[in-house]
């Protein structure tokens, strides 16, 4: 297995405000890599830096051995797709929205969508299971469905790397599990490499092959969930008392929270 994405000594941020400091990391291809950490730890900034939305002040980011900033932006968008946690819902039908994933493949003066564009869009709408709502407007469907539409649009870009920024944060457990099961299944089937920022530690532990734990703009731990998800790490990073046990079925780490009242009793 080879390295798909590599960051070397990256410094990045928004002007004088928050910044990422000296980030170096390698992401293996075909894996699901999770990024976790407290609010304001730089997870989203890191994702925006990888997705070329923020230009790093120092350091190099290479995808498949090529510096991402030496690539044409159109070429880059055929390789990397992004799903955001929150999307301003536009007033367009789901089908048209998913079709926008084909924009990186459009030629300059193309009046209509090509047959390939339409075929791929049909296929990815089926994969995301949103066939029944394809004609509904994006601002009239549920958030879970919007996220599925985002997923279908991202697949339509035919990426080698998919970046997801807290895609499940506003969803109920059915849609959380539904979304991540779909992502996992797709990753198994096609080997698509995925980097996903998650707030929910248990989802991260359950679905990710590899975890990156961040705090205050630096990477603190990397490794498999079973290696680094223990009460010491979590308590250190989140400054919260927890108990980490194993999920009885998957044997993956599971974090239990403890209330102050409970702590006093013991």
């Amino acid at each position, binding site marked *: 297995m080879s390295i798909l994405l590599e960051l070397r000594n990256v410094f990045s941020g928004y002007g004088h405000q928050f910044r990422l400091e000296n980030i170096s990391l390698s992401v293996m291809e075909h894996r699901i890599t999770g990024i976790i950490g407290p609010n304001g730890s730089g997870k989203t900034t890191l994702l925006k830096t990888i997705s070329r*939305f923020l230009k790093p002040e120092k350091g190099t980011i290479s995808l498949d051995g090529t510096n991402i900033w030496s690539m044409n932006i159109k070429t880059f968008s055929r390789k990397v797709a992004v799903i955001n946690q929150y999307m301003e819902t*536009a007033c367009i039908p789901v089908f048209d929205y998913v079709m926008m994933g084909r*924009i990186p493949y459009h030629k300059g003066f193309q009046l209509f969508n090509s047959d390939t564009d339409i075929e791929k869009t049909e296929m990815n709408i089926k994969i995301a299971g949103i066939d029944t709502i394809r004609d509904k407007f994006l601002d009239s469907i549920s958030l879970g469905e919007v996220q599925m539409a985002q997923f279908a649009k991202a697949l339509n870009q035919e990426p080698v790397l998919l970046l997801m920024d807290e895609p499940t944060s506003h969803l109920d457990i059915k849609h959380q599990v539904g979304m991540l099961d779909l992502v996992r299944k797709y990753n198994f089937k096609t080997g698509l490499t995925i980097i996903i920022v998650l707030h929910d530690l248990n989802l991260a532990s359950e679905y990710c092959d590899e975890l990156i734990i961040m705090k205050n703009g630096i990477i603190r731990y990397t490794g498999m969930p079973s290696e680094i998800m223990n009460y010491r790490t979590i308590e250190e990073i989140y400054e919260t008392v927890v108990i980490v046990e194993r999920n009885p079925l998957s044997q993956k780490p599971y974090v239990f929270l403890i209330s102050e009242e409970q702590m006093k009793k013991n």
Partner: protein
Amino acid sequence: MKRRAYRSVFIISILLFVLAAVVLLSLCIGSSGLTLSQSINAMFSSKDSIERSIVMDIRLPRILLGFAVGGALSLAGVILQGLFRNPLVEPYTIGISGGAALGVAFCITFRLQAIQYLGSFILPLSGFLGSLLVIILLYITAVRSNSLNIQKVLLVGVMFSFISSSLMLLIMSLSKTESLERIIFWMMGSLDQNNWGLIRAAIILSVFSLIAGYFFSIDLNALSLGEEQAVHLGIDIERSKRYLFIISSIITGFCVSVAGVIGFVGLMLPHFMRLVAGRDNRILLITSFLGGSCFLILSDTIARTIIAPQELPVGVITGLFGGILFIYLLSIRKAGI
């Protein structure tokens, strides 16, 4: 899904047909009381006659200017609404028309038209310079570290609008009644323009900007999802924002300089066309341009015939008819703006 392509072609053909019909209608009716057959004969006869002169020298220039200005204003409206992601923006919102009006008022008050060799060019020229000044100021204030802050353009533009209307009041309060009359007459907007050079320039510029805008139609589609999403779809947003801003503001400035402040076309037509022909900018740019042309030519025809031999300001017609038509359309359609 091929159906959608056919539908777009169908809508564009209908609009072309309507445009031809409106042009023909407008050529044939007017205050001079020519009959339909007289007008048509005059159009195709080669010898000079009063009829021919009325049709070709009085009506035709107005129609051509209506085609250019209506199309261009509506196009600028689509582009600006897409760029600002704001349905209330129109070409006059960001102060460009204010700049043009200021230029014209300045020119009239200080009697710059006395400059000999510029002749009838001086009013449009000073209007255009005024709008150009606003465009440049807007651009400079809104560009920070190589990035055009589009929300700032909107806010600063609205402020420019207020400033220039205050300055207009100042100039008008200081100028003589005769100048005042001319300023107010200009501000009401009119397609009455007999300078063929300007008309030709307007047509060339508006068609050219339609083609130029078309190169950015996919970018506009992507920008409708927000700047960040557009970047992730491989759009060089800084380049698109810049060119789109420049295209739309230049044509707005030019239209206002030539025809005065004709309201409502740039606000309403894009919405109207979105309701009728969908929001895909690849189609919307063309339909809005054609729709704007039809609408303005028709409005002008009504304005110059309804109380003939007097003439109404064309803005009265565009506002009244356009507004009522639009409210009606909104009330029968369920989909939002």
